[in-house]
């Protein structure tokens, strides 16, 4: 395909630095970018001259997610299958990264959300810093945490993954390091020095790379005073519940005992989110916990296609309208309440689509699955 300036590539002997370059859109992933990354990752795997991949974003964000606004736009013009093509490429890229034989170091400066997490968290090293903001905000948008999130969120300690995935809670660098989403915390002012050091070392040996990053790292970055990480016990108690309804009622019980900003924010964010999204997201994370990353992506692909097809619910389109296009921030979800989302409706997101032209996601055969690639968190 034609070269694009949406992904810049810097070559330094055996190191390739990939720069997401759509700074005005906070580097939101376009189909063009996803296709380019996919192509580059495939090529580098075969290329003996490439030993290490560095991934970063141009401007103040790493990546604010998939460019869903344009996906929705495309769908409204044509068929939902245009969207399917985008997600199929994106998820394949996620899988490639999760099973990659060469180390990927991602520099997570600024915003890392949704699809942005997908192109970094699956990689071997995730470096966060002072201004990192991570979130999986999909339930507020009528979608669900995709890009393999049901794999990596479900591997977080206790039921923190359910919390992050359902509420869209924002995590900072210290919290990401503590829960395992990040492997290193490097202060902002040292990031470029680290990048130089990695290029200079010119190695693909994970142990050496890890040692180099360690030299620049802050091992114990401080939690902010009101960090949600201090609430892990409450999170575990509530978010381990069987259903979304039970989670909310457990949170309400906690609130009755001890109301504070965090609890009320948590309840509020669940009440604002799409009821359908909440239910399919919870089930997705729970199933993902018992699956490998490939199975997770195949399942998420079924889910995302069902979402785009819009037969069970059109919340995704409504969410994009309310938050991205009209920006009235007042989505009208349908079904409007949790109790109206039946088990049968939820089941449909997890089943193969009854459409002759539709196929399950076909992931590329991998020649090698190193142990760290099977589970990194």
């Amino acid at each position, binding site marked *: 395909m034609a070269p694009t300036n949406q992904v810049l590539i810097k070559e330094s002997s055996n190191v390739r630095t990939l720069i997401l370059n759509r700074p005005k859109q906070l580097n939101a992933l376009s189909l063009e970018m996803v296709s380019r990354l996919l192509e580059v990752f495939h090529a580098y795997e075969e290329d003996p001259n490439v030993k290490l991949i560095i991934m970063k974003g141009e401007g103040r964000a790493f990546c604010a997610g998939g460019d869903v606004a344009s996906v929705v736009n495309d769908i409204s013009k044509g068929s939902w299958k245009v969207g399917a093509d985008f997600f199929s490429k994106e998820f394949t890229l996620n899988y490639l990264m999760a099973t990659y034989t060469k180390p990927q170091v991602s520099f997570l400066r600024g915003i890392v959300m949704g699809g942005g997490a997908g192109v970094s968290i699956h990689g071997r090293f995730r470096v966060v810093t002072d201004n990192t903001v991570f979130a999986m905000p999909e339930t507020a948008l009528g979608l669900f945490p995709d890009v393999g999130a049901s794999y990596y969120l479900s*591997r977080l*300690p*206790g*039921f923190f993954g359910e919390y992050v995935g359902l509420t869209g809670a924002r995590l900072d660098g210290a919290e990401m390091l503590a829960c395992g989403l990040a492997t290193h915390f490097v202060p902002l002012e040292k990031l470029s020095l680290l990048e130089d050091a990695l290029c200079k070392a010119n190695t693909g040996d994970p142990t050496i790379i890890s040692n180099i990053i360690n030299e620049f790292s802050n091992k114990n970055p401080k939690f902010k005073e009101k960090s949600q990480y201090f609430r892990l016990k409450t999170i*575990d*108690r509530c978010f*381990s*519940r*069987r259903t979304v309804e*039970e989670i909310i009622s457990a949170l309400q019980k906690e609130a009755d005992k001890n109301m504070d900003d965090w609890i009320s924010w948590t309840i509020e964010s669940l009440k604002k989110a799409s009821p359908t999204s909440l239910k399919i997201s919870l089930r997705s994370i*729970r*199933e993902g*916990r*018992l699956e*490998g990353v490939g199975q997770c992506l195949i399942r998420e692909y079924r889910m995302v296609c069902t979402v785009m097809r819009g037969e069970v619910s059109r919340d995704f389109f409504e969410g994009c309208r309310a938050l991205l296009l009209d920006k009235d921030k007042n989505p009208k979800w349908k079904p409007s309440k949790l109790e109206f989302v039946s088990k049968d409706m939820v089941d449909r997101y997890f089943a193969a689509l009854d459409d002759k032209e539709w196929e399950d996601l076909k992931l590329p*055969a*991998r*020649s090698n*699955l190193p*142990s*760290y690639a*099977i*589970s*990194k968190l």
Partner: protein
Amino acid sequence: MDRVNFRTQIITRHLTNHHTSTTNLLQTATCLNYSPPELSEPSSHFDTNALRKLLDGESMDEIDHMFNLMIQSDLFCRRERGGKVFISPDFNEPMEKQREMTMRRIGYLKEQGVFDGWLTSKGGEAELLGFTRANSCGVFDHSLGIKLGVHFFLWGGAIQFMGTKRHHDKWLRPTETYEVIGCFAMTELGHGSNVRGIETVTTYDANTQEFIINTPCESAQKYWIGGAANDATHAAVFSQLEINGVNEGVHAFIAQIRDGNGNVCKNVRIADCGHKIGLNGVDNGRIWFDNLRIPRENLLNSVADVSPDGKYLSAIKDPLQRFAAFMAPLTSGRVTIAASSMNTTKKGLATAVRYSLSRRAFSLKPNEPEVLLLDYPSHQRRLLPLIAKTYALNFASECLKTIYVNRTQESIKIVHVVSSALKATLTWHSMRTLQECREACGGQGVKTENHVGQLKSEYDVQLTFEGDNNVLMQQVSKALFMEFIAAKKKTKPIEGLGLEHLNKPAPVLPLNLTSSTLRTTQFQTDIFCLRERDLLHRFVSEVSQRQAQGENKEHIFTMTYQIAEDLGRAFSDRFVLQTFLDVEATVPAGSLKNVLGLMRSMYTTIVMEEDASFLRYGYLSTDNAAVVRKEVLKLCSELRPHALSLVSSFGIPDALLGPIGFDWVASNSWSSVKHV
């Protein structure tokens, strides 16, 4: 010629290379790499989720929720091996600590609301949910499953089924919340399977309206009582009831044995059963009662009661019938044991099969890669029939659950017979499978963290508790005998237990078997029915002959145990085949149905090969037995490509399998050793 070349090469190498440094040798020698079976095995020909659904049905979500709860809690000993998280109890901890951990895990599950409504919700669905929860816990640790089983199924079940409203209102809710911790004091040092022989005696004092429970001799001490040694506050005590000097038979009473602070009550003595070969997370204890007084209301009075002034009241006059009615509801124990033995089996098999798909041994030719264990026909023969059998028995176990939760007054007998037969068959299969898996994993099988070896001792007791397997099988034959005689007396066709085929003419088997005949459902059904029919006739005629000679009936049944055991197995096998066919019928034509058909043929063929009764009684000629044996080999090679998908469809999460089923090179690497 190859061999000559090979030797020449080696000699040349010896001559020319003796001075090369060892580093060079190390560089040229390729090291073993772990390759996950997912990479090397063909992708599944069928929908693995759909197959799992046939095993777990509607319970799938609940099972997965339980797994989620356990995997995410630190109480379940999470450990990382080769980049993956595993959970399993720490069996290296002393008995006391294992027991403490079991109770802490129960506390955690209670906090999660897992026990809400277990006893207070009504209906079959609630009962199924209970089975599912206890059995899912048992996948992690048998001790945890048993502790829940004793508390909910045995103690809770005694209150539910042997008690009446006054007991339900008082005890069920506090049991769910663990304010009351129950145990089930039936077995004694001197009496186990023979419950009617227990020696504990209870009398009634009309003046105080109290029962007095007494342990008259050492052999009457309650023994193996799960929960009694440390935790239980209350016991369902089984005892002979003597009213006005008349023994009214075995009855059950509620007795408090500890106070709220855990101190043993007055007139009760408790001792520990000590360390066991497995299940050390369960505090089995012994109890003596020294004329312990309990309120009159504590008699579980569903079948019989004692009036305040001390009169014995029961609608059922015949003590034998009364005992049978009284004990009837207690089959839930066998139902859950059967189901839980399937989980163990699946855990062991999935681990051993995954290992056999990544471990190699010996090259067939020099310089060729070593052969994958499961590519050896002998290894296939060891493991693959066990997979097919496990599916067959698992379907039967699900069927048993359905029969149990839909039970009626009329179907009690069916529940009893089927649960007895399947409890014995399934637990025997479980132990046999674990032993085979242990050996199939070689030395790795003896390592505790790889599960297969440890599971043997954890689950061995299943063959004994809730009825010794041999005793149960004889009871099955006895029940079949009674059915047959009863139908004959009434000159009515025999009905129920799937015995209707006896009303038809005996099936005629083809003289010379071929591979294709062996795979037809017609033949499979015919030979299983013929075997059951013939053995039942033989059994009836032997018993009748002895009766005609004036022998005592009980004596006859002890003397005819050989044929009784053959018949018990024949009944069980035929029942299992029938449920397999029923499951198959629900599946639309396609790849899943094909693989089910293959497994059914494997199941029937392996039963024919392994059970000597087919040759002993001539259902198979020696020639046909040879055809059967050959077919096993063929079926093995046909099942081989499905091996990974079949064990994946068991639905046991990776975290609950042995690390040996995954990257065993990484999990044993030097870097994984904790360096002090």
